[in-house]
């Protein structure tokens, strides 16, 4: 699984009137694992959404190397989802297939078994029939990781995947991220925990204000030693 590189070419992003990312150029190499850091309001989520094609590009361009929308999986911040929706864990996970099978093709027994297997892989076996309203924040994040598994996308964008979860869950989910990294997927993750960034992420892109440049000083693997 080798995705094409994702290239930013003098990218400018605006949030309303405010310019949050200005003139940013650089490459997310195939199979790279990048932590996206920066202060609140520095444009991390906006950049992630732009990479997924969910935020309009105000200037410059993003070259996704021919990736289809279904090839880019995005994990939104948990707060963006309606956790009171009456739906079971298995169905949420199975919806990960929606990008591939489309809106109208049936999801059969084989796919539902796949969903069960993914739930087991994220440490939630036998919770397929549980409604998502009954889950803790950590369990819900595990369910969303299981959905990512079914999406099976070569490029993964994650927005603060560990912010609302307990330490054990963060540890387990990080292990899954590292496995995806070994499989050669391109991973871009918004993160606040700088210790975790230094310990586990080969690459860091630090967004700092309107004049961020993709300089080698911020763009060096910190785990080189």
């Amino acid at each position, binding site marked *: 699984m080798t995705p094409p590189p994702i290239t930013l070419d003098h990218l400018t992003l605006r949030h309303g009137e405010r310019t949050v990312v200005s003139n940013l150029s650089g490459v997310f190499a195939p199979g790279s694992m990048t932590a996206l850091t920066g202060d609140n309001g520095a444009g991390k989520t906006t950049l992630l*959404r732009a990479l*997924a*094609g*969910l935020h309009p590009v105000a200037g410059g361009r993003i070259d996704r190397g021919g990736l*289809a*929308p*279904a090839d*880019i*999986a*995005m994990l*939104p911040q948990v707060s*963006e*989802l*309606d956790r009171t*929706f*009456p*739906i*079971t864990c298995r169905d*949420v996970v199975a*919806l990960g297939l*929606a*990008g591939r099978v489309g*809106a*109208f093709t049936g999801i059969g027994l084989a796919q539902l078994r796949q969903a069960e297997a993914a739930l087991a892989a994220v440490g939630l076996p036998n919770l397929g029939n549980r*409604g998502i*309203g009954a889950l803790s924040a950590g369990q819900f994040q595990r369910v969303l990781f299981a959905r990512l598994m079914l*999406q099976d996308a070569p490029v993964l964008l994650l927005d603060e995947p560990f912010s609302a979860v307990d330490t054990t869950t963060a540890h387990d989910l990080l292990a899954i991220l590292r496995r995806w990294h070994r499989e050669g997927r391109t991973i871009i993750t918004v993160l606040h925990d700088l210790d975790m960034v230094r310990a586990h992420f080969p690459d860091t892109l630090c967004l700092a204000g309107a004049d961020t440049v993709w300089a080698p000083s911020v763009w060096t693997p910190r785990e080189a030693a």
Partner: protein
Amino acid sequence: MIYDLLVAPFALGFMRRALAGCLALSCAAPPLGVFLVLRRMSLMSDVMQHGVLPGIALGAAVAGLSVWAMGLGGVLAGLIVALLAGWLSRGHGAREDSQLAGVYLIALALGVALISAQRGIDLTHVLFGSVLAVDDMALFAMAGVATIALPVLALIWRPLILESLDPGFLAATGGRGAVWHALFLALVVLCVVSGFVALGTLMSVGLMMLPAIGARHWSASLAGQIRASVVLAILSSVVGLLLSYHTDIPAGPAIVLTAGAAWIAGTLCGPHASLRESMSGHRRVNAAGKIG
């Protein structure tokens, strides 16, 4: 006695037509209502019910008391209001609910003004419905809309759930959320308009929303809530029409009051998220506390 109370009214042709129409609508409208509730768009149903009124009035002004003309006017007005509300809700610095309230107040006032300006239309009938007015045309409209709405809802089921649960995910995977949303709103407009002859514009939303709101007390799953909402709506239609027949209350308010009573009953003693359940839940907690 029981026969006179429950069965004899439906021996009359107009009652049978009203019943058939309301049963058709009971199958189609409440599932849409369940999605409106889940998408936190309950206020949108208010906007719709008031928004269709000026269109119905204009239809009557142009073509007289024809169900088709009034219906077409109502559908067009409803779609325009839906678009307008969608545009307003995309944030122009103001609170969305205040904008929607503004839209429906204007629509209601305009509708009442337009209808009052015409002789020959009874405002009460337009607003609250009249079973006597349900002719074959109105019945076909209700049954026809139900026939369209259910299969379309089944078709857009998966993207609609995705759009309600996690709109960003649908957009990121290439699904065009706005298309499903627009289709869904069009179905809501169709159902509201098709019910207006029997139930009235102000009340036809009641058959959509109250069973949907009440359904969450009967099931924890989406499919279960939809089934429950249809059952509640059918019961409300039958009981409401009988109530209307025996007491001379217009059909719309009678059916909506019945649906309201069913909702309250569910809130008090339904198997899910009801008062009874939360009280027995407390008892369990207390008992556990004593053991500890």
